């Protein structure tokens, strides 16, 4: 029986290999991913700065292991991306049943979507996708800084839905789509959000995205709309500038936020870069609660060795109100931290 199964499996594998050779428009299955670990020390000795990830104080902690699969056959393709670890399961993806209290039943899915290129200019995509809003992303290999901005933390992480991308030219593209509520595998109040992204490439190396996402989420009384500008410019071989500005408002006095983050990076060598992020973030007034703001400066280095990147970082935050705590638990307007992360991409 074992021998028969072995030969059956062998025959199936060979058939699949032969078929793959014959299907010339099919690309091999791409497997890629990343893994990250970090150490963080807040100088007040208390976990203070509420970034999305890397919140453990004075601890060598894990981020996540992230695995992405991609396959294209002719005009059709799919992407599936899974993440395991606090950065994924606890920090960036919803629970499988949508219940906040049930943290154990994660689907671990960051991206799961299918695309079809109708023409060389028009592509249709449907599924659960990383958001098109904002500068920073969930996977650490996509960010220069290891800690995340307030704009990232407060914006959407994923948008499930259906979208159409049209490239008018290599310099102008437009995406329009209908989406679920933010960060939801399923939407209990229907596909209620509309999103659009205008991509402009004014000159080589400069890309700007103008984003809009608006809709009424389940259980809310107002309609939320986010307007977002994300742009980056590779000024020289070494210097890169990035900017993210966003405004989010919910009607019927449900508040929102606005802010801007500026990113300056310089690659001193192909393996060593320094980057500075400055951010201003403000929450809007809601009845009985006045909005506040926070300013943040983050200095980050990237040291690359093959697939491994070491990311030492210092960060200073200053709030308009005493939103942080000192070592003796007294409230304070200031907080600072050091972190060292190791991120491996494969």
């Amino acid at each position, binding site marked *: *029986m*074992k*021998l028969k*199964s*072995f030969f059956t*499996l*062998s025959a199936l*594998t060979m058939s699949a290999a032969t078929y793959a050779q014959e299907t*010339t428009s099919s690309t*091999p*299955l*791409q*497997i*890629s991913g*990343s893994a990250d670990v970090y150490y963080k020390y807040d100088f007040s000795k208390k976990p203070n700065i509420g970034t999305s990830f890397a919140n453990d104080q004075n601890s060598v902690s894990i981020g996540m292991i992230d695995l*992405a699969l*991609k396959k294209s056959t002719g005009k059709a393709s799919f*992407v*599936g*991306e899974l993440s395991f670890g606090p950065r994924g399961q606890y920090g960036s993806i919803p629970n499988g049943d949508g219940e906040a209290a049930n943290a154990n039943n994660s689907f671990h899915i960051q*991206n799961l*979507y299918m695309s079809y290129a109708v023409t060389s200019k028009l592509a249709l995509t449907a599924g659960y*996708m*990383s*958001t*098109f809003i904002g500068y920073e*992303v*969930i*996977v650490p*290999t*996509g960010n220069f800084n290891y800690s995340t901005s307030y704009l990232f933390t407060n914006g959407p992480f994923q948008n499930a839905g259906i979208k159409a991308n049209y490239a008018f030219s290599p310099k102008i593209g437009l995406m329009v789509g209908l989406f679920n509520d933010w960060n939801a595998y399923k939407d209990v109040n229907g596909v209620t959000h509309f999103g659009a992204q205008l991509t402009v490439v004014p000159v*080589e*190396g400069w890309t700007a995205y103008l984003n809009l996402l608006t809709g009424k989420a389940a259980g809310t009384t107002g309609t939320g709309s986010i307007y977002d500008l994300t742009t980056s410019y*590779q000024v*020289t*071989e070494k210097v890169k500038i990035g900017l993210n500005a966003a405004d989010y408002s919910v009607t019927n006095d449900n508040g929102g936020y606005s802010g801007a983050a500026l990113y300056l990076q310089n690659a001193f*060598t*192909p*393996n060593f870069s320094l980057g500075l992020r400055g951010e201003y973030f403000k929450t809007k007034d809601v009845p009985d609660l006045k909005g506040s703001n926070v300013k943040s400066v983050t200095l980050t280095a990237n040291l*690359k*060795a*093959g697939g491994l990147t070491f990311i030492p970082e210092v960060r200073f935050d200053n709030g308009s109100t005493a939103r942080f705590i000192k070592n003796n638990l007294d409230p304070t307007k200031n907080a600072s931290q050091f972190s060292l992360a190791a991120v491996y*991409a*494969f």
Partner: protein
Amino acid sequence: MHFKFNYNHEMYQALWPGAFLFLFLLLIISGAFAQEIKEIKELQKDEIGKYIHYEVVPELPVSADSLFFKAKAFFKLKKMDPFAVDSTALEQRGKFVINKTAYVLSHPSGEILYNFRFEIKGERYRFWLTDFSFIPYQRDRYGNFVPAAVKGIPLEKSPGKLNAGEWSAFVSEAGRQSAGLAAEFKAYLSSAAQQAKPLHKTSPLISTKSW
């Protein structure tokens, strides 16, 4: 419905030892095959220290005008961008995609840009690939690999000890792909066909009406 296996028990017992053995052998064979492919022509350096793949062909397979026309058709077929043109020379900009391969799995890890120059002089022609520069790819938020920068890093630039192994692999891959492209270019210019080869071969139609 009757299932041949109790899925939780018998199927695993029957399949997995054989399956593991087969996959292991497959990986070993694939690894050996990949090693064999990597026995390649390395890039040389020119008089100013730039990597170059340089060839002189001592006779023209067709007239100079026809050769010029065929070279243009080849560049169009390979989707190269015209860089500079004069009456006896063509210069194009092209790229090789570099795949990071681990046994049977791979994904694009970057691209190597190059300039391809072609010249005719008397009864001979020459061509060379040079100005190689590497642009790494990074995975974007949607899981696709895209260029991480606009401007490439010249292959001659020393990457330092930390990335020397990876960089050396890029240089080797540039050499291998340059040699392959050069062979294809020469074969194309020597072939009788005047038109670019179609991307997909069309099989002859079989008639079932007359036999």
